[in-house]
Each structure stands twice: as structure tokens, then as C-alpha cells.
């Protein structure tokens, strides 16, 4: 298959601006790896971009309300249902879910089934842990934390062909959140992390939708690798393995 961008055009990413969070760091990260990034709340620009990033810091209810106000709920669902990559970050992951308990019950976009719940009295080896969960934490392939699988025994690497491609189990990412998503279908979980004694879903994949509870654009060189892989994903027309093979041959 011939990639869409082989004539040198840089992939264009729309970063959805609904008035919340630091959109500039996501933009800088896109540009750093050679993608064009546009911060926008314009429907047509979101629909015409090669990929869409749904970022977000702040309260779930306010965010959903502002997505409705800007009339972006429909377009976002449309993009998610198409073949274009949609990338949710932090609150952007939570917004994809069915509903959240944050300050009352709020309906989300419902693109991925399952609720968003609060960390309840997390506890670590040195006593009770703080909420929000702020700081660096490892991400692991599903099952790894229960020692169900060793990294070497994967017949098929669950991160292959995803933006996490090439990262090792335990890679540190930067988190800032009090709530986490529980996908109804466990197959959706792309990585898990541990806060104290609780293992939670730290990233998910649903078709062309990828979402991270952490901030790849604030996670140093390893986080930038995720942006790099998003670019590769776009340049390979969605088929990462094929692209890798083509590069090798």
C-alpha cells in the first residue's frame, strides 16, 4: 500500500480546543516530531485533519458541556467512527467513556463503554497515597502486573501497531488525575499502571481510537516517542507493521 504522505506532506493534526488545558504542549510535541498541528474548535477543520487529538485538563462536566456548546460531540463521534486516528489525552480519555462520577453523574461521549471513577483511598507501602495522582508512573502491557505474562513470551505484542510500539514494560509516563476509566470490555485496555495497590487502565485502544490517561507530551523523550509513532501511523496509512516491513526491506 502506498502511504498518503510519501510526497513529503506533513500529517496534519487537529487539537480540539474546548477551552480547557494546556494545548500548547501537545502542539509543540506534534511539531517536534514533524507533524503540523492546529489548535481549533472548528468542525470542518477537525473533520478534514488526518488525525484528531482530544486533550483536556479540568472538570469532566464542564468539558462535556463545552463540547456540546461548540457542537463538537457529533463531529468527534463521526471521526471516531471513521478510520482516522483519534487520540484522547488525560481528560480526553475520560470524555470518550460512557459516564463519569466527577461532581455528580455526567454523560460522556460514549465512544468507549464504561464508567470513569475516582481513586478511593489509595494506599501504598508507605501509607495512604495522595489524590490527585500526580507524577511519574510506569505503564505495562495488560496482564504484566499480575505476572500472567513475561515480556519475552508475547506471541503478538499488544503494543505493536499502536503509538506505544517499541516501548518497554515499566516505561515512566507523567500522570495528573483523580479519576480513571474502567472499560467494560477488558480487551480495550492497552496498558495498565498501578497506583498503590490499585491497578487501573492507563491507556486504551478501540479501533482507531487511542487514549492515554497520562500526558505523552509531558513525559520526556519516551513520551515524544508516542507522538513519533502517531506520525508513523499516519504516514503508513494506519498500517504500522506494513510500514515497518517496507522500511526494513
Amino acid at each position, binding site marked *: 500500500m502506498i502511504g498518503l504522505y510519501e510526497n513529503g506532506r506533513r500529517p496534519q493534526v487537529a487539537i480540539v480546543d474546548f477551552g*480547557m*488545558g*494546556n494545548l*500548547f*504542549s501537545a502542539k*509543540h*510535541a506534534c*511539531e*517536534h516530531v514533524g507533524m503540523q498541528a492546529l489548535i481549533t474548535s472548528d468542525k470542518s477543520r477537525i473533520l478534514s485533519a488526518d488525525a484528531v487529538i482530544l486533550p483536556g*485538563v*479540568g*472538570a469532566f462536566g464542564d468539558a462535556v458541556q463545552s463540547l456540546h456548546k461548540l457542537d463538537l460531540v457529533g463531529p468527534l463521534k463521526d471521526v471516531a467512527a471513521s478510520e482516522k486516528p483519534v487520540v484522547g489525552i488525560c481528560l480526553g480519555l475520560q470524555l470518550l467513556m460512557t459516564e463519569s462520577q466527577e461532581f455528580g453523574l455526567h454523560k460522556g461521549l460514549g465512544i468507549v463503554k464504561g464508567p470513569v471513577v475516582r481513586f478511593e483511598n489509595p494506599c*501504598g507501602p508507605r501509607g495512604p*497515597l*495522595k*489524590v*490527585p*495522582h*500526580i*507524577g*511519574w*508512573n510506569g505503564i505495562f502491557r495488560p496482564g504484566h502486573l499480575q505476572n500472567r505474562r513475561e515480556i519475552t513470551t508475547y506471541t503478538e505484542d499488544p503494543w505493536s501497531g499502536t503509538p506505544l510500539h517499541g516501548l518497554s514494560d515499566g516505561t*515512566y509516563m*507523567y500522570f*495528573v*488525575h483523580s479519576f480513571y476509566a474502567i472499560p467494560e470490555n477488558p480487551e480495550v485496555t492497552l496498558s495498565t499502571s498501578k*497506583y*498503590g495497590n490499585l491497578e487501573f487502565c492507563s491507556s486504551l485502544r478501540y479501533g482507531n481510537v487511542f487514549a492515554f490517561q497520562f*500526558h505523552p*507530551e*509531558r*513525559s*520526556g*523523550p*519516551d*513520551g*515524544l516517542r508516542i507522538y513519533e509513532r502517531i506520525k508513523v501511523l499516519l504516514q503508513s496509512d494506519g498500517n504500522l507493521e506494513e510500514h515497518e516491513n517496507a522500511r526494513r526491506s
Partner: protein
Amino acid sequence: MSVRIIPRLDIKGPNLVKGINFEGLRVLGKPEYFAKHYYENGADELIYIDAVASLYGRNSLNHIIERTAQEIFVPMVAGGGLRTLDDIREILRAGADKVAINTAAVRRPELISEAARTFGSSTIVVSIEAIRKSDGTYEQYTDYGRERTGLDAFEWAIRSVELGAGELLVTSINQEGTGKGFDLELTRRIAESVSVPVIASGGAGALNHVSDVVIQGKADGVGIASMFHYNCARHCQLNGDDFHEEGNIEFLRKGVQGPKLQDASIPQIKAHLRNCGLDCRLQ
């Protein structure tokens, strides 16, 4: 949870400065150079504090943040002289992820709740700058340690979290710049009385100071300046960095002599913390 190692860059005009007890600020070099060096060496976050903004009300920090944001991909906290929601909005737009507020919040505590509502609690860091009095109490100071407030530092810390602070930056002015170790009591008493993470600052001068403030002081993050800066300034000099007219740079020309402390790199500090059984990010 992993311990964050956070270089703290105090800024005066276009320069990185360092003093002792927030006084006698000496110019060490260009903050952009230091910031990039720390990012590349594994800093988990960076803190920028404009030392004179409260006094002069100027915003050179925005430009520094703007310039560094394009090549630094870890969280950046910016503080000093932020008075209004518009000031906060502007520095977030420049590329900061969080803001640290003190003076304006003490004058008008509602600023904390308004800012938390507008930008999210996790964006708002309240800066506790305390002086230990001879009777053992701690008083909150504003304006980079220049103004008394009459507020008890512990009560103020608890109140600011109730108002919506998502994190506290706790600086002991007595220890700041001395390299004699953190004020463990100040840090621990605050960390144990609030539900949000605490970044300890002021006093790091040796590897064991850093592990002490995490294990005994219960800090979630550790702000470090002198231990990194003097060493980095020497490199900076070797690279022929130029300096602006502002501030006291004579001592740099004569060769940098900081207070007596153990220079350490970020990887050395993290290796030490790991030896103490603490988790921290390696890259």
C-alpha cells in the same frame, strides 16, 4: 509513587539567579541553557520562580517559558508576580503547565478558588514560603521573603488546599540556599496535614538531604537549585555564555564558588534514592 526531582530556577530579568535565604542574588547564567541541560539529564519537572516580579510587576518570565516550551517536554511550573486570572492564562499560553502563586493569594485568598475553578486544581500550586521563628512557630512570607504576613504557615497551607490548591511548593527561607538540608519538620507537618502532593524546597546540599526530606519529611517532590546550578554554571561559562548587565556577575568571572555543598547530577541523586528503596524515573 515515584519521587520527582525538580530543578528550581529562580529568575531575575533574563537571568537565572541564586541567593542565600532569598537574598544576595547572584547571576548564574541564562535559564534556557540550564533548563535544557536539566531536561536532557532526567529532570522530572522544572520550577521557574521570578524573584523580583512581585516587586516590579514585570513579566520577563513569560518569554523564558515561551522559549523553553518548544524543546522541553516535562511539566513546567511558573511563579512570581502572578496577580490575576489573566496573568495565569497568559503564562499557561506561553507553555507553563502549572502556576505557583503566593503574594496575590495571601492578599486575596479567593484567587486560589477562582483559579482552581477556571484552570483545574491540578494547575494551581500554592507556594508556602516560611520563616521559622525563635519560638518554633513558622510564619508565611510573601514577595520572595521580603514581607511578613502574620499568617501561621501551617494554617495557611491547610486553608489554601481547602480553597483548591492542587499541590504545595513548600520553601524554608531559613534553609534556602544554605545547602544545610531541608527543614524536615516544616515539610512533614504540612505533608501530613494536606491531601495534595508537597514539593519541598530550600536547603538541598547533599545526597542524604534529598532522601531525608522524602523519607522523614514525606515530600512527594524535591526542588533543588544550588546543588545543580553552580556545577551547571561552570559548564555554562566554558561554553562562553554571555550575560546581561543586570545583577552581580563579578563572582562568575572570578570562578564560581557556591556555598559549601556536594555537587550532584540528577542521575546521581536518583541512583541514591533508588539505593534508599525509593522509586524514581530513570530514562
